[in-house]
């Protein structure tokens, strides 16, 4: 199984891994430098285009406001994501157990998915309390990938393994617990990974649609508000935070997926194994 590692190959692999970190970093540095130079050399005023240095300064100086907003948005995202995960998996399990339920409800899940959430948000804001409406938006955007992936996973069970469960007289619950859910796990985790980012998008869209001021307002609201006030550096700072939040969410979910699958699933194994 474990052959002697070839030092040249290992060296090569390490160099490649370094390049994958260093190259994007260089691109980032060059981009920021060019941006700063363009702003300074052309004397572009900050209300038109702030340089990266000013954006960072704003991020530090406005930290207390922005951090509060970040927490608000993250909380909405988390609530929407959890609802999407539970709702998506539960609905997929229900579909898997009964074709009738699947045929009855699946078209509406698709409709909910294909209708742009930005168009639904104003309606939801009329009928639901604002905080609930925002979470519902995050849920609407986030739940479909979990539903679709889990449904796919539950139905792509190895036919012979299913035969084996049948041969040994497995109950429905045993088949679900010991065969279908583990088989579907890589798909479920893939769905959650997509859904995490989408929940953030849903939360942001709803916040922009809600557009309320006050202490409880999220990052998206800060962006809209700063836009009205021509506080462009703060817009950039808030955007930067949102982007970072998205990266962290994705990274966390990818890590969880890797940890859960690393011992057995092809996607989590080294390529040369």
């Amino acid at each position, binding site marked *: 199984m474990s052959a002697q590692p070839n030092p040249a190959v290992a060296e090569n692999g390490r160099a490649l891994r370094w390049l994958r970190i260093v190259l994007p970093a260089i691109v980032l540095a060059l981009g920021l430098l060019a941006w700063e130079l363009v702003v300074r050399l052309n004397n572009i005023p900050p209300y038109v285009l702030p340089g990266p240095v000013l954006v960072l300064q704003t991020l530090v100086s406005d930290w207390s406001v922005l951090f509060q907003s970040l927490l608000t948005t993250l909380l909405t995202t988390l609530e929407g994501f959890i609802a999407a995960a539970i709702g998506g998996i539960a609905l997929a399990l229900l579909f898997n157990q009964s074709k009738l339920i699947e045929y009855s409800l699946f078209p509406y899940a698709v409709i909910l998915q294909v209708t742009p959430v930005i168009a639904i948000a104003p309606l939801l804001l009329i009928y639901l309390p604002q905080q609930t409406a925002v979470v519902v938006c995050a849920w609407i955007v986030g739940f479909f990938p979990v539903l679709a992936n889990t449904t796919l996973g539950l139905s792509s069970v*190895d036919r012979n393994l299913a*035969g084996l*469960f049948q041969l040994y*007289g497995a109950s429905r619950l045993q088949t679900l617990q*010991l065969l279908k859910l*583990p088989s579907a796990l890589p798909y479920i985790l893939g769905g959650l990974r997509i859904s995490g980012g989408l929940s953030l998008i849903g939360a942001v869209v709803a916040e922009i649609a809600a557009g309320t001021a006050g202490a409880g307002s999220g990052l998206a609201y800060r962006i809209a508000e700063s836009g009205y006030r021509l506080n462009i550096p703060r817009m950039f700072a808030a955007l930067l935070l949102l982007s970072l939040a998205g990266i962290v969410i994705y990274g966390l979910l990818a890590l969880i997926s890797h940890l859960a699958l690393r*011992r057995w*699933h092809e996607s989590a194994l080294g390529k040369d194994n």
Partner: protein
Amino acid sequence: MALSGSQADIAGLSVSLQGVTKTYDSGVAALGPLDLKVRKGEFVALVGPSGCGKSTALRIIAGLSPPTSGDVRVSYHGEEGRPGQGIGFVFQEPTLMPWTSVRENVRLPLKLARVPAAQADARIDEALQRVGLSEFAKNYPRELSGGMKMRVSLARALVTDPEILLMDEPFAALDEITRFRLNNDLLALWRNLRKTVIFVTHSVFESVYLSQRVVVMTSRPGRIAAEIHVATMEPRGDEFRTSAAYADYCRKVSAALAPSYSGRSAL
């Protein structure tokens, strides 16, 4: 599956098929009518061209697929059993659960039957020892070679101590050397345990080497073309593989198969 009829019909037999046919929903006639009786403790090989319904026949015997018509009887402790009762099944692929260890894979049939853990542990140990994998109990399937995975699959089939072992081209995907070794191991297991084995294979050589009776099937829909009794010394070993008698049996089986491949292409 017809389960009526007197128990006398099954006396001394493990499996009895009468006039069994299978027609798929697409209208393709896959099997039969097939009449096959397998004595208790007998090792029967089913040989035939691709698509002749060998695997279908096994699935019908296991109760995994209902026959379109005909009578299927499987014995369990000398009486007529329910479908699937007392049967171990080995597929062409190892068909292991990749997300858990060798030990847990072998435990599966006992877990599904809700056998108490302490009792199950002893039986798992025994099954793993029989196939020579005791040291690999904690490994995951992906860490094993193709031959070892097949052994796990065999251990899982043996762990319930079935009366009948159905094997569907279990060694077809393995290299020749591994296959020879597993053939010998399977024969040793059969000598010790005296289970009824129905072994589906494409290989003329494998069928003659392993079985007491080779049942040659025609191309689709599969019927019995010939039966060749391999009456030879036990235990069989490499000297049998190189004997004139072995070559003679292989020639007979090949001759019985000839109509399936000398006419129009089965593909």
